[in-house]
């Protein structure tokens, strides 16, 4: 990380000059291209310029993964401080947004990539705070990468950017209402920005325009934007539901985590569409007045750290063996799930069953039988969950198809950003001796915690 020298790179020339910093292109000994970033330090520049650069130095040193640019070296020389950044190839969402309104399937695909990247960032205790389409780059490998961390807030580091400014920090098109009021560090502010980006992709414009005037910024504290379907009738109700949920004025009315947004975008058919999704027009002055009044009430919610907010919003995956017909085990799993979600207010559950393809192909080619098996599994999953009486918007059901049940479960856990997998032990049946234990493989390979549940035995 830090400590490497600029002497390891060859300067190729200027790359881009921004308002806050200048970028140059570099080449390393292996011929790989990098970017050199230097802040504008001259007198008269915005005070946040330098603090923003420092914030990037601090935050990028702590971040890992393909969702952020690599930062192999940073330091200071006679021209001032510098950073070497990965030059991420690919297309930015800004370029793709030029063709908006985009079809809803494309909005969902891009939104899912964005939500996946955002969740990976929030898991590292960082809020981006300036998530614009230009700051999201789609790598050729398929993931989204987020760039420009000048306004970012790390839950465990000093807030240098915030300390330098008294006004709102962010970009008018995407800034969240609480950020307009100077509150920083809530990961749900990024979900608001993600909602504004989805809005733009779905309708071709931003929910509150791009004006940096006081009215342009503050309007979003009390008023709703026009519903996406009013601007683009082709936008389906489920997508409007998702977008308006991200754009809720109060953070606690948005998704509790980017993982929850990702799950909805990955499975539109399971989004529970309410009044919000069908709404033909924005709420009027009465609603705005009620929000204005509510804003004046003492704060109910405490300031949160990104990691703290995520800890309250666990994503639980329950793997159910629908072939087992073991009612005691089913009940033990329900009890374990109740205990797991009891403490955390913003949990989400995905129930999965695994269908072996051999059952389908060997017997008959007809898709009808396959659908029959699939439906039977789905019915069995719903049957398992019914006694829990969980709110429908918090639970999802999926039938996975694959010969390797453990791999299917682990894969789904990864896609869902699961924090915890709950599954039953298969017991000491002949089947287990023959097939080996699915749960032990899930325990070994899962990206998260796994609880293997056994029913209490009488003896």
């Amino acid at each position: 990380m830090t400590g490497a020298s600029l002497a390891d790179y060859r300067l190729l020339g200027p790359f881009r000059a921004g308002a806050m910093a200048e970028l140059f292109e570099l080449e390393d000994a292996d011929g790989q291209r990098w970017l050199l970033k230097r802040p504008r330090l001259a007198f008269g520049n915005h005070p946040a310029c330098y603090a923003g650069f420092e914030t990037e130095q601090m935050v990028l040193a702590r971040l890992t993964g393909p969702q952020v640019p690599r930062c192999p070296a940073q330091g200071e020389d006679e021209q001032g401080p510098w950073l070497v950044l990965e030059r991420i190839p690919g297309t930015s969402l800004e370029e793709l947004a030029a063709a908006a309104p985009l079809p809803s399937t494309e909005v969902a695909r891009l939104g899912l990539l964005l939500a996946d990247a955002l969740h990976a960032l929030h898991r590292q205790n960082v809020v981006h705070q300036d998530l614009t389409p230009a700051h999201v780059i789609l790598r050729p490998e398929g993931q989204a990468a987020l760039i420009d961390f000048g306004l970012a807030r790390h839950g465990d580091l000093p807030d240098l950017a915030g300390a330098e400014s008294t006004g709102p920090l962010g970009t008018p098109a995407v800034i969240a209402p609480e950020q307009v009021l100077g509150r920083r560090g809530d990961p749900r502010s990024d979900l608001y920005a993600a909602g504004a980006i989805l809005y733009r992709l779905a309708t071709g414009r931003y929910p509150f325009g791009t004006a940096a005037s006081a009215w342009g910024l503050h309007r979003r504290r009390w008023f709703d934007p026009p519903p996406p379907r009013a601007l683009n009738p082709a936008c389906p109700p489920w997508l409007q539901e998702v977008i308006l949920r991200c754009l809720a004025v109060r953070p606690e009315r948005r998704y509790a985590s980017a993982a929850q947004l990702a799950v909805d975008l990955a499975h539109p058919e399971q989004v529970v569409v309410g009044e919000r999704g069908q709404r033909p027009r924005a709420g009027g002055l009465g609603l705005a007045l009620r929000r204005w009044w509510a804003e004046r009430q003492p704060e109910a919610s405490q300031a949160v750290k990104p990691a703290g907010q995520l800890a309250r919003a666990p994503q639980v995956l329950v793997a159910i063996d629908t072939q087992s017909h073991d009612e005691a085990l089913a009940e033990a799993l329900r009890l374990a799930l109740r205990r797991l979600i009891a403490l955390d207010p913003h949990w989400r559950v995905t129930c999965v069953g695994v269908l072996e393809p051999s059952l389908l192909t060997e017997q008959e080619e007809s898709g009808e039988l396959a659908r029959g098996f699939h439906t039977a599994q789905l019915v069995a999953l719903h049957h398992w969950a019914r006694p829990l009486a969980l709110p429908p918007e918090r639970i999802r059901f999926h039938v996975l198809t694959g010969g390797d049940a453990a791999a299917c479960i682990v894969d789904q856990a990864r896609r869902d950003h699961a924090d915890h997998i709950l599954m039953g032990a298969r017991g000491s049946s002949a089947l287990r001796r023959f097939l080996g234990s699915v749960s032990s493989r899930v325990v070994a390979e899962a990206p998260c915690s796994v609880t293997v549940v056994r029913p209490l035995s009488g003896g």
Partner: protein
Amino acid sequence: MNLAILADIHANLEALTACLAHAERQGAEGYAFLGDLVGYGADPEACLAIIQRHAAAGAILVRGNHDEAALAGLGLDMNPAAREAALWTRTRLSAAERDFLAGLPYTVERDGTLFVHASAERPQDWEYVSDERAARRCLAATSASLIFAGHVHHPLLFHSLREPGREGVAAFVPQTGSAVTLTPGRRWLALAGSVGQPRDGNPAAAYLLFDTARRLLTWQRVPYDWMSAAAKIRAAGLPEVLAQRLGEGW
């Protein structure tokens, strides 16, 4: 280099050995002791023996107010328990140990980094740098870009921009184990917290690790056998309050 910075040891042998063992496991290659090596605790000789060994190996050492009080003076500026402990410590020290303490400087500066027990502004006055105003005066008194201090017994990090006219100081309560990059355009004042008598509600011993090459600063907390340290304080007949506070961290 990985530098372990230990402040306010206060003759607490259990805490000192726990921190040194922890630092060694974390790969510490150098050591700095920021004063108040003795006073309050019941093991001044054993602690000084360990610290002298590190001093011989090149460790950085500065003097604290309790080290000074153990040498001479009436300790009139101290609270009664501290004064009693200082007088008790005085009776325990050999001439060689007294000479060692008397030879400690108020400050040490190395490669643009200042080591001091209390404040860089008149270090001999033992001011508590516990808020932004005191931190600002401390930073203004030196050209060093980084200051390590103790005395307050709380882990804290103050920082300010270098730019003239914009040197407003901000404070940050560091998170244990979370590395902070000390960016070059800013001046930093880091309070290490206390090894031998933490006062931030957490009884675990506190010290700092500084990776000088990557300029990463990490506060560490080390649980240690405070019950033995408290029992020794009671056995020595030192004020009960000095034993009691160890288990509660106040």
